[in-house]
């Protein structure tokens, strides 16, 4: 990597830190201004409430709370759960849940991208033939049907009726109980990647440089694998960003349907319970992952495509 690349990455990292700070501030204010408090049991007397609030530092003015939160956060301490998991360390709690969501997201992305690319390439190479039509139908379905509908369908068909896979998450068989949610999540990835790959591949196949490569006397396999694929697949990386983000929101609902103890389930529960620290930590993690993904995608795009890698002023 040359200097300009490092400078670029440094700049992006700085912007990322600023963005995260802004997100954190907005999140903090939003949670504090949400109606209700974490402690709304009717059994608590006003005095008891005061004691509890003082214990968690919630009696202090909001700017002070925010400052304290930031200070602790920089030390890696995201506070404790108020209600859901009484006094448990939030960062441990969230990390443990995030593992599963992360696993779902990554598997769905990898599986969906590979299948989608294959489908798109096959469709482009057999344009207007049966394979192309099949790919188009799959793409349209995958794009237009939300992942939770797929999750429901899969659970009903393969979980309830056929009993091929568990309908909910089971600690003792994590892999088999992950199949359905991952499949459901990957449908939209397959659809988007296939559609995009097909379009890119067709435009590459029709390009002048492919004609030149053909005029060199190369066989079809060399033409496709050495000349077309790289050019067609580079742009696919650009849509992986939005797809991943989509998946992050998708996991929340799919986790609910497949009863999987992931980050999404935790976030929804914590919002309902006003468990500030968990809401903050989950949302922050989502934001953080989003920014990191975008960064990785931008950098990898630069590494693969020489036109971007070398940038301007290079001669």
């Amino acid at each position, binding site marked *: 990597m040359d200097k300009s690349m490092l400078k670029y990455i440094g700049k992006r990292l700085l912007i990322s830190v600023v963005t995260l700070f802004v997100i954190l501030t907005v999140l903090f204010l939003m949670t504090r201004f949400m109606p209700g408090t974490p402690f709304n049991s009717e059994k608590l007397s006003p005095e008891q409430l005061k004691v509890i609030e003082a214990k968690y530092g919630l009696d202090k003015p909001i700017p002070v709370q925010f400052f304290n939160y930031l200070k602790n956060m920089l030390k890696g301490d995201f506070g404790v759960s108020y209600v859901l998991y009484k006094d448990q360390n939030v960062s441990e709690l969230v990390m443990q849940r995030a593992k599963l969501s992360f696993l779902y997201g990554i598997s769905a992305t990898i599986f969906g991208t590979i299948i989608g690319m294959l489908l798109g390439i096959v469709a482009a190479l057999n344009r207007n033939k049966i394979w192309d039509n099949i790919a188009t139908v799959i793409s349209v379905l995958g794009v237009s049907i939300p992942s939770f509908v797929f999750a429901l369908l899969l659970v009903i068909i393969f979980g309830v009726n056929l009993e091929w896979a568990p309908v909910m998450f089971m600690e003792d068989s994590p892999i088999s109980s992950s199949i359905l949610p991952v499949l459901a999540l990957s449908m939209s990835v397959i659809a988007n990647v296939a559609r995009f790959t097909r379009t890119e591949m067709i435009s590459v196949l029709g*390009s*002048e*440089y492919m*004609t*030149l*490569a*053909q*005029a*060199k*006397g*190369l*066989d079809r396999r*060399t033409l496709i694998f*050495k*000349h077309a694929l*790289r*050019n067609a697949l*580079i742009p696919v990386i650009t849509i992986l960003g939005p797809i991943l983000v989509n998946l992050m929101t998708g996991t929340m609902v799919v986790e609910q349907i497949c009863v999987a103890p992931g980050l999404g389930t935790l976030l929804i529960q914590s919002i309902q319970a006003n468990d500030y620290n968990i809401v903050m930590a989950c949302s922050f993690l989502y934001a953080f992952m989003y920014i990191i993904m975008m960064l990785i995608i931008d950098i990898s795009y630069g590494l*693969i*495509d*020489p*036109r971007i890698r*070398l940038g301007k002023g*290079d*001669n």
Partner: protein
Amino acid sequence: MSQREKILEIRDLNISFKTGNKNVKAIRGVNLDLYKGETIAIVGESGSGKSVTTKAIMGILAKNGSIDSGSINYTWHDEKTGEKITKDIVKMSEKEIQTEIRGRKIAMVFQDPMTSLNPTMTIGKQIMEPMMYHYGTSKEEAFKKAVKLLEEVGITDPEARMKNYPHQLSGGMRQRVVIAIALSCDPYVLICDEPTTALDVTIQAKILELIQDIQKKKGISVIYITHDLGVVAKVADFVNVMYAGKIVEKGLIDEIFYDPRHPYTWGLLSAMPDLDTDDDELYTIPGSPPNLTQEIVGDAFAPRNLYALNIDKRLDPPMFKVEGSNTHEVASWLMHPKAPHVEMPESLKKRINKMKKEGAINA
């Protein structure tokens, strides 16, 4: 030209394209000859079938195109035995054309160097690829040869350039790279499809000179496809004027430029921009080329031809030999002995006389 050795012989080539439910007859009975070391030009307006003809020679017609009849005989000497071999490209399988002909014996230079190089492959790799593929040249040897080729096409510091990507080169340099790729397998025939159209005027002349130099050095034959008569005048030995998928006039460069006989050629020559014409407006040939999805009755040029005869509407004219020449041929009923005598327009005559005086032609 005493010992002319024929390399390419196209006879009665007919090509059509299927679009929707229509059949477009893009090439209608083309005959063409190419001799070793010579340069021919195929001239005509857009859609006249010049590119299609050469794509047929390379066997890279679009999927919906098919050769209905005719032959493309290609003659070469076997690399080892020196034995003369003639093969009809039309009858060869795709695999045979791909391994034997394309890139190896006939290479092509494309119109737009900005889009004809693979953007994600270094130019070195792109030049080395054909020789490694066809001849199994080792990487080291291919690298050496590629550097030499780059040097030959006039690229400075070739070794450093090998690692460059196309976007790091200017248009003129990219076209030089395209030429280097075409030359990488030592072809016998180089097809240049409008090689200078997309380039800067100042670069155009340099690229043409480069192609001419290489041709002289390597003794290869060149086919130029162009609509630019200026280019033709500079480089060609022999000219084929194409109209609506047919060759309407062919002859030596002098014959076409100084003694044109077909009204279409008159039109083309009159339409050349010129600094000192008396008219304010640039001459254009009236009308537009015919719709080739329909069967053409008679001479395809007749509706645009001011000098059309009645017979033009019924019968397609055959090739008439021009008296006193065995190279000049014209497909126009005006050449029939019984046809009325028609002179070319006065303004064109003046222009030709001027060209003659200035010696506008390369020869």
